[in-house]
């Protein structure tokens, strides 16, 4: 029976795993290794601000082990959503690390680099042709958004990976990719059926996360067969169970039965999870329904610079009637800022007050309340066109609230316990996700460009 075997050594490149378990698993005969490097959880700053998520040292450590293992066994290594967001800067950052490792280890191989930032004129043309479709919820967009946005990436399907493999790439470094496409590409290229291939990929994209107890991250081994797939944790002390694998379909997905991919939708209604002996789980009944080929876009727009201040308040004289006091203090602080900077400059700023201890985590969605608090923390976040203005406004607001009168006391008070110096912290440039759309493409490679390098 035809099978494809592969390893996902870690859920996110740089997350760490035990080298011995990985090398041992490779000895069992594996067709390829793939690892996801991406996440949008860090927010739009990774894409918009050309920033990595996992550190250089952590990425290099993991990459070195995977690269050495893959080259020793002459099997392809695929990396998806390079450097966090999968933008061109992030892709190149990973490419530089790969070159460092190759030089240090004396490795030679053929690399495919797949860029995921589509040509903007092409996007505008598709927008004019009505080939954008909003997902839910999507912000309103226009052509200007497609031109102006700092960085836009398309989430590639398996086809660019397959193209690179067919052109002899030993190592594929890809920009923004569907996590599941990264792990589906090789099995699909070998003619494995789409149902088990895609569902397996969805489980494997998180490394060995679908285990009973995730004490420390380790990888996962996968066998894709004609009518099932089977997963086995690489950590010898880790077990997976039908429940742990089934539960993984819930993680970070809005719908556990339907998962949209560039060329169709996974249908997981009739899936059976069974123990397969040892620490393995076998999964049957996964389906993939082909559909119109669309590419999901992500865009990070620059919106200004931010500064913040955090101060704790423990004085019962304030907390007894906190809302009234805070309203007065905010009014006094904004009066002071306007007096110093003028109304025009202040209008260019967005000032956000958050009260921790009450609704710092949920904001306006917090339904719970309390009669009395013994400590609250006030966070002020200011967004402004320049870093200097953001910090200036934050500083004036903080200073005014620090000394703002408390009705019960007479004389000068200091109302905020700053947990660290400096009390005003510069957060740097701020970005915002501005696209939640898919775009119809003429063919799966249309938005992506592949170049090859020999190393």
């Amino acid at each position, binding site marked *: 029976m035809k099978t494809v075997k592969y390893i996902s050594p870690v859920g996110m490149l740089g997350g760490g795993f035990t080298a011995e378990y990985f090398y041992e698993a490779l000895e069992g005969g594996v067709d390829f290794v793939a690892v996801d490097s991406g996440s*949008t*959880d*860090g*927010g*739009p*700053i990774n894409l918009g601000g050309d920033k990595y998520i996992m550190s250089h040292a952590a990425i290099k450590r993991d990459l070195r082990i995977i690269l050495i293992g893959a080259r020793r066994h002459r099997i392809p290594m695929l990396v998806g959503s390079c450097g966090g967001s999968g933008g061109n800067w992030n892709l190149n950052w990973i490419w530089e690390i790969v070159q460092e490792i190759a030089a240090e280890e004396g490795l030679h191989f053929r690399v495919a680099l797949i860029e995921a930032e589509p040509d903007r004129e092409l996007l505008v043309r598709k927008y004019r042709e009505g080939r954008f479709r909003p*997902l*839910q*919820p*999507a912000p309103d967009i226009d052509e200007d958004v497609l031109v102006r946005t700092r960085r836009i990436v398309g989430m590639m399907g398996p086809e660019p990976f397959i193209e690179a493999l067919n052109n002899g790439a030993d190592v594929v470094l890809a920009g923004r990719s569907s996590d599941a496409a990264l792990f589906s590409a090789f099995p699909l290229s070998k003619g494995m059926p789409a149902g088990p291939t895609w569902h397996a990929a969805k489980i494997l994209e998180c490394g060995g996360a679908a285990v009973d107890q995730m004490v420390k991250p380790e990888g996962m081994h996968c066998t894709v067969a004609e009518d099932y797939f089977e997963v086995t944790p690489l950590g010898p002390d880790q077990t997976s169970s*039908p*429940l742990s694998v*089934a*539960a993984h*379909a*819930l*993680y*970070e*997905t*809005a*719908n*556990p*039965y339907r998962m949209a991919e560039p060329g169709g939708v996974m249908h997981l209604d009739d*899936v059976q*999870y069974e123990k397969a002996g040892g620490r393995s789980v076998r999964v049957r009944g996964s389906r993939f329904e082909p559909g119109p080929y669309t590419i999901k876009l*992500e865009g990070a727009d620059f*919106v*200004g610079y*931010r500064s913040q201040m955090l101060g704790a308040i423990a004085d019962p004289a304030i907390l007894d009637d906190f809302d009234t006091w805070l309203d007065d203090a905010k009014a006094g602080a904004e009066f002071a800022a306007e007096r110093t900077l003028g109304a025009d400059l202040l209008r260019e700023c*967005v000032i*956000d007050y*958050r009260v921790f201890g009450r609704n*710092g*985590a*949920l*904001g*306006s*969605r*917090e*339904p*719970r309340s309390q009669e009395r608090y013994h400590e609250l923390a006030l966070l002020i*976040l200011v*967004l402004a066109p320049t870093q200097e203005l953001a910090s200036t406004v934050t500083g004036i607001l903080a200073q005014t609230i620090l000394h703002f009168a408390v009705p019960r006391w007479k004389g000068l008070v200091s109302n905020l316990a700053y947990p660290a110096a400096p009390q005003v912290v510069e957060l740097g440039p*701020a*970005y*915002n*996700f501005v696209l*939640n759309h898919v775009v119809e493409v003429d063919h799966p490679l249309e938005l992506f460009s592949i170049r090859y390098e020999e190393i």
Partner: protein
Amino acid sequence: MATLGSMAQLIRSKNAGPWMLTVDIMFSDAETYRHVVSTGVITAALVEDMFGVPSGQVEIFEYNPANAIKISFPRSRPNGHPLDTDLFGGQQFAPLVDLEIPDLR
């Protein structure tokens, strides 16, 4: 009456992409899961009441293979937006923990 938090083995929330939040309520056995489902307490109307999210934007799934209920709804803002309060969406489930689940007759 018992709270949802005392019956579930895990209640968690997380981003499902930059624009959506998803809450998983998982039970260690099918019996408890079935009980909570059959009380009919967890509805889109409850989510609207609790979080102020319009019920038409709330999706609820019963996921038998993992004895789990999933609730998905849009974030107030995409994660990392200057006014976003929870970058990973990891704490948005909290008010559900003390939800009272009626006993079955």
